[in-house]
């Protein structure tokens, strides 16, 4: 297994080695692969953590934390992910000949009694360390409550575009991990088959093939799959294309970029906000369709929909690049600028109509690990992880935030560069190597 799907449940190899060291057994890579495979199904088989349990599950597993969590979860949280991890490690190692011999080695006679006394003392010490640690963790959790959204994505149906890789994939996995049902789109059958092979069979994900570069294809695919707009609680449009290295006068590439990154969103919004399944007939007129901002009879006037604004949330994944030009990649930046401005305008229209059924969230991520950025030795330190960006996007959208810019320090840096003048920007961006990426 090259990459973990659900980090809340699946420990990485480093954490697995820490668990083995804690349990006093030798790690085995073949057993680790089995463990990761088993725990990939965990979000769909076992109770999902929430509240303080979720807070404890999110932290990285070190040997110290494992020891603390082991005691806490055994006593108070029997269905916590770490219990499944520890139980899985013990189960797999006891099935392995060498692993079992190692685990079953035990003192006999009077040595057994002496050893038990030692273990009891060690356990007492461990409990003594765990109690203040738990108190600290609880205080940290309580202190963070005002900053955390109480809304949950569990049980919702979420649409995510471009789920075959990059941020789209992480958004889909994060939604699945949090208990949502996901409708994901990919560009072609090859991507679909590769993704299906990776996803656990029990994952509630429905994958559609659609080429967003074809006008109207996105909405056509949704209608073919008999997906109703009102069934989508949240729609995250993360698919985008970047033709790096192309001249800005390459019009075909420019049109293609705008179609995928901006016009597909407008087509989708027209379908999403139209009453019922009504959609403008004919592909050529789809983009020009006016939005219906009147609440549909299905949900109008219902108090629960006012309380749950996420019922029709549209999340547009733009870019910090939308704030400035860039040589040989302006198509991408310009289309993202158009998407941000269009999204903001749409949000204003929706707010003017006083419709509380819809929200538009614009996401402008900065530096994070994506297929569109170069990997350098500094990447690890400067870039945010895709999963962390996905988590922040989902949490922000659930909280009804209208703009999300993770990581925020990069937004400040970008704005600083923008204020510094075009010459400075030229010198800065001239040093970047144009490269092809899609």
């Amino acid at each position, binding site marked *: 297994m090259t990459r973990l799907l659900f980090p809340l449940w699946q420990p990485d190899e480093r954490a697995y080695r820490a668990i083995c060291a*804690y*349990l*006093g057994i030798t790690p085995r890579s073949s*057993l680790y692969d*089995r463990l990761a*495979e*088993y725990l990939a199904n965990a979000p769909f*088989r*076992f109770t999902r953590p929430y509240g303080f349990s979720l807070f404890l599950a999110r932290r990285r597993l070190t040997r110290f934390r494992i*020891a603390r969590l*082991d*005691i806490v979860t*055994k006593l108070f949280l*029997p*269905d916590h992910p770490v*219990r*499944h991890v*520890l*139980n*899985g490690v*013990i*189960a*797999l190692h*006891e*099935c*392995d*000949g*060498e692993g*079992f011999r190692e*685990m*079953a*080695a*035990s*003192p*006999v*006679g*009077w*040595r*057994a*009694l002496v*050893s*038990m006394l030692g*273990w*009891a003392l*060690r*356990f007492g010490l*461990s409990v003594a360390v765990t109690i203040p640690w738990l108190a600290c963790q609880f205080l940290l959790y309580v202190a963070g409550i005002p900053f955390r959204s109480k809304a949950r994505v569990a049980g919702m149906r979420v649409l995510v575009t471009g789920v075959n890789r990059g941020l789209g994939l992480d958004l889909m996995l994060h939604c699945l991990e949090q208990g949502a049902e996901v409708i994901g789109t990919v560009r072609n059958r090859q991507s679909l088959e590769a993704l299906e092979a990776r996803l656990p069979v029990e994952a509630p994900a429905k994958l559609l093939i659609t080429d967003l570069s074809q006008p109207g294809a996105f909405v056509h695919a949704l209608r073919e799959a008999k997906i109703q707009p009102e069934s989508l609680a949240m729609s995250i449009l993360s698919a985008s294309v970047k033709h790096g290295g192309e001249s800005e006068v390459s019009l075909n590439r420019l049109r293609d970029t705008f179609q995928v990154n901006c016009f597909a969103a407008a087509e989708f919004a027209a379908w999403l906000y139209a009453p019922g399944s009504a959609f403008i007939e004919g592909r050529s007129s789809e983009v020009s369709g006016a939005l219906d901002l009147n609440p549909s009879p299905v949900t109008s006037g219902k108090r629960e929909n006012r309380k749950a604004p996420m019922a029709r949330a549209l999340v547009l994944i733009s870019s910090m690049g939308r704030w400035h030009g860039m040589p040989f990649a302006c198509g991408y930046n310009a289309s993202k600028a158009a998407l941000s401005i269009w999204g903001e305008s749409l949000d204003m229209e929706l707010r003017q109509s006083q419709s509380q059924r819809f929200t538009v969230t614009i996401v402008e991520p900065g530096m994070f690990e994506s297929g569109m950025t170069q990997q350098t030795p500094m990447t690890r330190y400067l870039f945010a992880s895709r999963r962390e960006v996905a988590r922040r996007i989902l949490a922000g959208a659930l909280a009804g935030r209208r703009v999300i810019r993770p990581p925020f320090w990069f937004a400040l840096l970008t704005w600083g560069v923008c204020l510094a003048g075009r010459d400075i920007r030229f010198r800065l961006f001239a040093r970047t190597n144009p490269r092809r990426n899609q």
Partner: protein
Amino acid sequence: MKVVIVGGGVSGSHTALTLLERGIEVELWDVGRAETAFPEPGVTFHNLKTRVADPVAYLLGADLRGLVPPAAPELLRYPPSRHFLASSDDPLDSFESDRFFPYASFAKGGLANGWGANALAYDQDDMSEWPVSFSDMEAAYRTVYNRIPVAGPVDDDLVPHLQGVYPSQSPVRLSAADQGLWQTYHRKRRALDGSGVKLGLARLAVITDPARKDACDYCDRCLWGCPRDSIYNPSVSTLKQCDASSAFRYVGGRMVLSLLTVENRIVGIRYLDTKSQELREESCDVVFLAAGALQTGGIFLRTLKSARADIAAETDGLMDTATVKIPFIALRRIGQPSDPRSFQFNRLIVGMVGHSPPWPRYLHGELLHLTGLLYHPLIERMPFDSRLSRRLFFALKSALGVVTFFFPDCITSGNRQVLLDQGGRWSKIGLRYEEPADKENYIRHSVSRMKSVLWRLGCVPKGIVRSPSGAGIHYAGTVPMGQGPKRCDATGRSNLFSNLYIADGAAFPSLPSKSITMSLAAHATRVARRADL
């Protein structure tokens, strides 16, 4: 005359063998799935982990379904490498329930492929609510004990309470832990007299005679499938005896759904051909239902619905033994090494004798010291962190044991099978079951008595583990003996259909605590002997 027996488990095979002995030609219809061969005969359970190519897949299943998650109610799962049990997503599964979790088997030999081998008989007190007395059943029990070799003692404290048990071989070897407990019991026997709890050597349908090539070699793999066929299994024993007769025809690949009737007589059988997946019908003259109480009840209900729409399509009863486990630590065994080879199932049994109306006087328990099992559910259940639990478990392993009690059941209004009309190719069967309230007191009282005895035997009991309803696998009472159209008479003949015989546990009007298998075989034998053919 075409006589069809439905089901190839203990009841079906003994019905067939008895009818063959009467000179009657029989057909035995069965789904008849085959189990794969058990690997590495002679190798012990733990050594198997270094011998099979992929021990994780063998022990936990390729999809690791055998891994018991934390907080799960069970202490063990049936080995995923064995295919005699049907899962709930099996296309042939016909049951629906949210409170009763039944085991079903479509394998040749049925649920006996995985039974615990305890071979006891119901006595007069156990059958006090039956229209059949022990003396009526005794001849059948003797026949069955002649057919099935049983290892057990000729004399111990339980002999007076275990009427109708006829061991023909020496008992299975006790482990060192069993011997310690056995000696302590004998030292304190007088003091324990007042408790009503008695220990005995297990009566087991296992071949122990070392002169036989199929004798038990104590490889600790009973649950994983006996590679030497030492434990009785109808598919390798009784059905093979039937096969030797030219009057016997085994018809596999058929799942019987219902019976065709004309004026209260069975004239044919409607079945699913499991190979072609087609629904078919075939005529017959006499039918013996021996598909197991749950399947038999289902077939009876589907037949009832088409034959007598005026009668509600639900059974009069549904029973199973509630199982309660009491784990304990034998203090003197702490720090002692485990036996390298042993018999995996219980070598000792417990009888709790006393008057507790309306339940039978004898409550059966099985006393087991841990040998070859997957230990992770037990480690996870210990009240310490995983590191200490793992170390402590293996230091205490040879001292750990469990007493499992099987609590009797009776026909209670509300506990029944119901025909569900939800479309599909055949109607599914709903299982409605709740433990009778008065049984809870009985369970509590019995557990408390046993715990007190364990303390006196130098063992520390630790909590109890209740299995969910349906986990007892002693299903009975879906077409019970008694008055009424949905019941059968004392000979197993249906009160409604004159040429239909209920030859399995569906006919039992109450369910004693003792293990059911020998009584299933005896009932089938008696029904087949008395059938009016």
